[in-house]
């Protein structure tokens, strides 16, 4: 469905952020894109959705293809119309708009205007918390509520492919699990394909079918989600389990001792 082939992207004409990035999202699947800070995950999503130029960046090589159509050098509004929607890193809800108006904004590019009200109710089924807040200004929502709204806005657009950039950012572990369960549900019920960027590799791989791991602007490892979950190297570097677990335990004991002293 989506093919990213050997893409190179630069910011300010000199900062090379992607150095031959490739990935593939099959129809109806959830794909996780993992990697450390500054690896180029957000840049990959911005390249796909045409938002790079808004930040002084551009694609200098490679191709991005969606359902057979080439997406390089197409403006974001056309890309959204083609069925790709990005939920940006850091939520970016419209703070002065109410929850309902934010959801309306998400539906901006849709052609079927008649089903909007019904779809909004569907969002409130996925995220019951938002229902009570529907006429509150989004700026006053908590971080978790804003994240739900940001995802809800994406569903309102009825995309074929939803790109999610760190939906767990700044959210309590319990809520992270819940949000990822809902992402999974949306994927199953709406048939929306997903490309999810995450720091929290564990939870992302738990719902994903396939995963890519990025370092320094390119993919360094890929495989089925359960393969990555069980891979020693991945467990060690990205899941914080394996060898380091022992250290962590020792640390904990150490800290406990310290606390007693304190």
């Amino acid at each position: 469905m989506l093919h990213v082939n050997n893409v190179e992207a630069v910011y300010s004409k000199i900062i090379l952020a992607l150095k031959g990035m490739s990935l593939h999202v099959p129809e109806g699947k959830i794909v996780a894109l993992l990697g450390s800070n500054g690896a180029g995950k957000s840049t990959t999503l911005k390249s796909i959705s045409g938002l790079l130029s808004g930040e002084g960046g551009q694609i200098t090589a490679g191709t991005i293809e969606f359902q057979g159509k080439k997406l390089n050098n197409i403006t974001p509004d056309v890309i959204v119309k083609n069925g790709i929607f990005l939920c940006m890193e850091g939520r970016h809800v419209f703070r002065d708009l109410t929850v309902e108006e934010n959801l309306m904004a998400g539906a901006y590019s849709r052609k079927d205007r008649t089903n909007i009200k019904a779809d909004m109710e569907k969002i409130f089924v996925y995220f019951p918390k938002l229902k009570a807040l529907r006429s509150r200004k989004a700026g006053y929502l908590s971080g978790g509520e804003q994240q739900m709204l940001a995802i809800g806005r994406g569903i309102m657009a009825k995309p074929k492919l939803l790109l999610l950039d760190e939906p767990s950012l700044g959210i309590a572990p319990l809520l992270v699990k819940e949000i990822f369960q809902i992402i999974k549900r949306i994927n199953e019920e709406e048939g929306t394909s997903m490309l999810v960027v995450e720091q929290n590799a564990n939870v992302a791989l738990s719902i994903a079918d396939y995963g890519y791991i990025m370092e320094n602007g390119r993919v360094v490892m890929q495989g089925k989600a359960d393969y990555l979950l069980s891979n020693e190297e991945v467990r060690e570097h990205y899941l914080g389990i394996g060898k380091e677990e022992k250290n962590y335990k020792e640390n904990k004991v150490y800290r406990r001792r310290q606390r007693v002293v304190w």
Partner: protein
Amino acid sequence: MTFFLQMLVTGVVVGSIYGLVALGFVLIYRASGALNLANGEFVIIGPYICLILMTAYKIPFIYALLITLIFSAVLGLVVERLVIRPIQNAPVVSVIMATIGLSSLLGGAVHMIWGHQTRTFPPVFPQTPINIAGVIISPVYLWSFIVVVLLLVIFSLFFKFSKMGIAMRAVADDRQAALSMGMSVKYVYAATWTIAAVVAAVGGVLLGNINGLSPTMSAIGLTVLPVVILGGLDSVLGAIVGGFIIGVVQNLAGGYLDPLVGGGLKDVVPFIIVLLILMLKPHGLFGSRRIERV
């Protein structure tokens, strides 16, 4: 008491027009962060067109007004396309400079084409004053007020419910996020300038009907500055409330104090109010300190 009410009514009507003109100003500020210093010229061009259509071409007011509005919409579009869009990624100061240049250009054109004498509109509204509880109101005032209130209601509905209205607010709020919704910032900017030019023209036609028309009327561009600063540069509600406040206070000051000091106070008072308000509320009455919650 009657004198007071008379001044009050005049103030409210003039203030409502200020509010309307300020609305265009605020929309542009919200969309691009720039002050449109050519707003005063937007205000006077419309009524000149309308007047010429009525006097030289004998077109009835309603049609003349319609043509004027279409002309103004096109003017707004052209200005956005030719002047603003080429520099939309330049610093805000450059945009403001461009509007100053635009202001001289349009102001000069008005002088050149229509001269500097004051012209009066042929009577459009009935002439017999209406007596409401002892206060004499000329129909022009009443109609102006009705038109402005009607327009303001239409705009609030537009911003609340229409797709373009929501997009305009979204772009003002978070441009990058608006882009990610698939909103076309280009269309939003064009719509903003169109609306600003149209409301300015409506305000101008109303003012022209009340006071007569001369190039000095573009000074309203300056009067509206205190209005928007008072209301808060980025608040639509603030523009309207600020308009009423400035209009009323200005007229009361003109009525009561000008005879004492020998005139001129009317033009200064708005700025004095703004100074006072800004000392107490630096963001204006309704201006947003952005909601920060991360």
